């Protein structure tokens, strides 16, 4: 009696003690209709499995206890029964159908991404998340905010771990309650997965592809999740925090963000004229370096070669020109893990971090880089076409050129320059030529891709002097190297047709008809 009481006490103690209360044992119910459906489904399957387990294991334990040799039990000889086999094939099928029906309904619900009130683009990269609100002009990165000394304990030291250790970020995603929020999810590098258990949303972020998911949360609060797909070294260090606010609070937050953005832009402009002291640069540089660079290049600047090279004593951070250093930080390095930080950091922060890297760990170059230097070194990329863009454009041009030359050689062996075409003929042929030779840059809509590839719709060239237009297509642009000369690639008939098309499509409606003879005249 006494022992039994003690046992009960122990059991009760175990169940009620705070130790167990801290340990969640089951799936979260979550805070959305879908997550509750998912939880119910989970419990349904769990109960069914438990019941089957009790029956099957019960039968096995029954035989182990009662049908044992040591008790002198004589074995039966039965070893076949088609009836029984059919029975225990059919019953599970029925049970499975019972499980599949609610699962199907829940799944159809989960995959219905239509009619969203708000869309947020989520982009994963090594090892942070980027959130961009559609139609709101708000976007930001979200990075782990747990201090490194809390988790880097290899040398035996350890700062006390905070309550939300490894589940806290500098800027959480904020969404309103009771609104259908659609997430479009993608990645900049490897595959990540965006997972918030309380929403029952887990969706892979695939580089080059876009996935969709949605949620509608009915309870304000802070919800935490983690990246769920192995994405490299710091896969365990890219948490997700979502703050769900009431609609009114969300509106306030949104205004704040826009204000912050305006302030940041002002600060950015101001920083261009400011000259920051070396001390301040080094201080800001160290903070920025620890937050953004130390994961790979290490606090010691020694990196993790060969994947993540050392900065200490490296050519880039010492003897090399500061402009090249800035360029790598700003634009990243293609084909490596080095991201471009132009979008993630302010000009001042980049200036500070470059200064820090060029002076810390005995690099001692003495270089103090200012925001204006950053703008000058990388700024070409911001304002106008840089060499890389020009080169890319030229490459595209060359490819198009080659493809067209081949196409032309195949289709039109010889042409009759004296032939006069009708508008319909010219327009049909022109559209075809345009769609193969011009569309890559100027787009099917004629709206181009400013600033490198200008619009043709309502453009002064396509609506202005016909001779200039023909000359542009024949001989290319003298100002913009991206515009190729098509005289050697297209026949005169084709150029006539495409010019006609450009002058009359997309509402340009000049009514001009260009004939092969006009092109031939211009070419001479």
């Amino acid at each position, binding site marked *: 009696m006494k022992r039994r009481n003690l046992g009960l006490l122990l059991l009760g103690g175990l169940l009620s003690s705070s130790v167990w209360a801290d*340990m969640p044992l089951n799936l*979260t119910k979550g805070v959305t209709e879908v997550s509750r459906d998912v939880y119910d489904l989970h419990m349904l399957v769990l109960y069914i499995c438990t019941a089957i387990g009790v029956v099957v294991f019960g039968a096995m334990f029954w035989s182990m206890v009662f049908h044992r040799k040591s008790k002198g039990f004589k*074995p039966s000889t039965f070893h076949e029964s088609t009836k029984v086999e059919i029975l225990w094939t059919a019953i599970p099928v029925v049970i499975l159908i019972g499980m599949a029906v609610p699962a199907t309904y829940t799944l159809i619900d989960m995959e219905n991404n239509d009619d969203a009130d708000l869309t947020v683009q989520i982009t994963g990269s090594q090892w942070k998340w980027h959130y961009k609100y559609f139609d709101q002009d708000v976007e930001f990165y979200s990075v782990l905010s747990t201090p490194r000394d809390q988790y880097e304990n290899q040398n035996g030291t350890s700062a006390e771990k905070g309550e939300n250790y490894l589940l806290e970020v500098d800027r959480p995603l904020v969404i309103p309650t009771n609104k259908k929020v659609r997430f479009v999810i993608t990645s900049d590098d490897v595959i990540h997965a965006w997972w918030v258990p309380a929403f029952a949303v887990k969706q892979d972020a695939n*580089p080059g592809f876009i996935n969709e998911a949605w949620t509608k949360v009915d309870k304000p609060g802070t919800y935490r999740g983690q990246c769920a797909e*192995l994405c490299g070294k710091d*896969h365990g260090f890219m948490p997700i925090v979502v703050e769900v606010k009431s609609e009114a609070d969300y509106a306030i937050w949104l205004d704040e963000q826009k204000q912050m953005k305006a302030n940041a832009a002002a600060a950015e402009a101001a920083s261009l004229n400011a000259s920051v002291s070396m001390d301040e640069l080094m201080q800001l540089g160290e903070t920025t370096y620890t937050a953004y660079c130390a994961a790979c290049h290490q606090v010691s600047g020694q990196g993790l070669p060969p994947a993540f090279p050392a900065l200490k004593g490296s050519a880039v951070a010492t003897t090399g020109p500061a402009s090249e250093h800035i360029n790598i930080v700003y634009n990243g390095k293609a084909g490596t893990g080095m991201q471009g930080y132009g979008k993630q950091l302010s000009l001042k922060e980049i200036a500070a971090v470059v200064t820090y890297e060029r002076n810390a760990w005995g690099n001692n170059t003495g270089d103090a880089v200012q925001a204006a230097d950053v703008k000058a070194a990388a700024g070409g990329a911001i304002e106008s076409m840089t060499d890389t863009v020009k080169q890319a454009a030229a490459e595209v041009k060359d490819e198009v050129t080659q493809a067209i030359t081949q196409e032309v050689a195949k289709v039109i062996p010889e042409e009759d320059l004296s032939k006069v075409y009708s508008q319909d003929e010219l327009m049909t042929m022109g559209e075809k030529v345009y769609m193969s030779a011009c569309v890559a840059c100027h787009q099917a809509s004629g709206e181009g891709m400013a600033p490198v590839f200008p619009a043709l719709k309502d453009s002064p060239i396509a609506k202005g002097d016909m001779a200039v237009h023909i000359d542009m297509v024949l001989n290319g642009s003298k100002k913009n190297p991206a515009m190729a000369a098509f005289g050697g690639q297209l026949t005169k008939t084709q150029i006539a047709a495409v010019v006609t098309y450009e002058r009359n499509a997309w509402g340009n409606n000049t009514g001009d008809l260009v004939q092969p003879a006009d092109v031939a005249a211009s070419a001479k």
Partner: protein
Amino acid sequence: MTTDAINDQPEHDSHDGEHHDHKMTGLKRWLYTTNHKDIGSMYLWFSFIMFLTGGVMALVIRAELFQPGLQIIEPDFFNQMTTVHGLIMVFGAIMPAFTGLANWMLPMMVGAPDMALPRLNNWSFWILPFAFAILLSSFFMESGAPNFGWTFYAPLSTTYSNGSTAFFVFAVHIMGISSIMGAINIVVTIMNMRAPGMTYMKMPLFVWTFFITAYLLIAVMPVLAGTVTMVLTDTYFGTSFFDAAGGGDPVMFQHIFWFFGHPEVYIMILPAFGIVSTTIPAFSRKKLFGYSSMVYATASIAFLSFIVWAHHMFTTGMPLFGELFFMYCTMLIAVPTGVKVFNWAATMWRGSISFETPMLFSIAFVILFTIGGFSGLMLAMTPVDFQYHDTYFVVAHFHYVLVTGALFSIFAGAYYWLPKWTGYMYNDTLSKWHFWCSLISVNLLFFPMHFLGLAGMPRRIPDYALQFADFNKWVSIGGFAFGLSQLIFLVLVIKCVKGGEKAPAKPWDGAEGLEWTVPSPAPYHTFETPPKID
């Protein structure tokens, strides 16, 4: 083992020449052997060494996860540990152990003198150590071993991989070649070398499961070879199979990988079904219940394994129709698997059960594998899989299936046939210690992982939030206990090889099959004239 002289080759007759076994001496015997028993032993020893190697890596992982914070290793090395642990356990421990059992037992069970292609057999074993030497050598490279998970998802394994990817690719190629040759050997042996009168439906279920498994291997190993080759060319030769920027698709990698990967998990469990279908009737002293339904169930599982691969990929953004199709097909697998479990329970029902160590491992197999099956059924449900996917719930699931499933069945088989292999009975007390220590520690190791996963702990992370700390501590303790328990088995096997109580030809009164008609230890050559089956 002692070496024996060859009487008709005088340069070798140094030792006790009592047997007329035609084998060489020393290292040459093992290097040149074409004997299925020698090759079987080598496979089994090799797999045990690999099991310990992969086990040490698991212990490094568990040591790091013992408490929150990064205490021992760097995250990148942690990823190398999880990756190589997985690769070694799958390709180095479980699969070669089954091939070893097949080599030892299949010819004896079908009444054949040896495997059909003995030289191929020698080669398929001897390339394996080189494959794993290549893989393990990458630890000594500057960049370290592969760190992208044993599933090597692109582009983490291509554009973003470290310098050892080529080593990984060629190691997997060699493992694949070895598996394919082993599988061809099994198929040819079973089809052509059965004793007269042994029709297909008279073959022991053990033979059936290996027959079907061998076909699965032949079907999917080339797919794996294709996958790693594409990873190789994407990494080093500028192709873009899995790179969207070049017109490829990273999700296509997963489709191709899991088209291999899902049948692969059945490659690792169907032979286990065969083993326990041998041991449970033996120690229940009653014929296997529903032999033919067991054969059909095995074949159905093998077929279904080809049309469920995308259930590993529910969160990749599949269309709704795809998700439904793969969910229904996956749930369907529960039916033939259930039939098997019910048949084992029915075999035990009203038998005359005794609890020798092979039976203990077999019963533990049935119960714990079924728990792994239950969590598999839960994972099959797409909506809930969104919550389970890539968490410790999945880790718990596949370890229940592969450790308490495949590995426990291998232990059951090893204890069952050890007397036949060595000629001595194993130390019963040690074997009981091995069983009970393994059983308790393995559950302490893997059961709390279910809770960790449900509470939201992702897999493959070197550090975790504080609410996961208590369970991780228990899991780590269980891990070390389980690892140490396996040393008991090592001691037991060495003792059993060296000597002990002499084993009779048939040490288990309920055992059936041709292997028990030959003396223990089984002579170097058995069934040189085929037995007659009626």
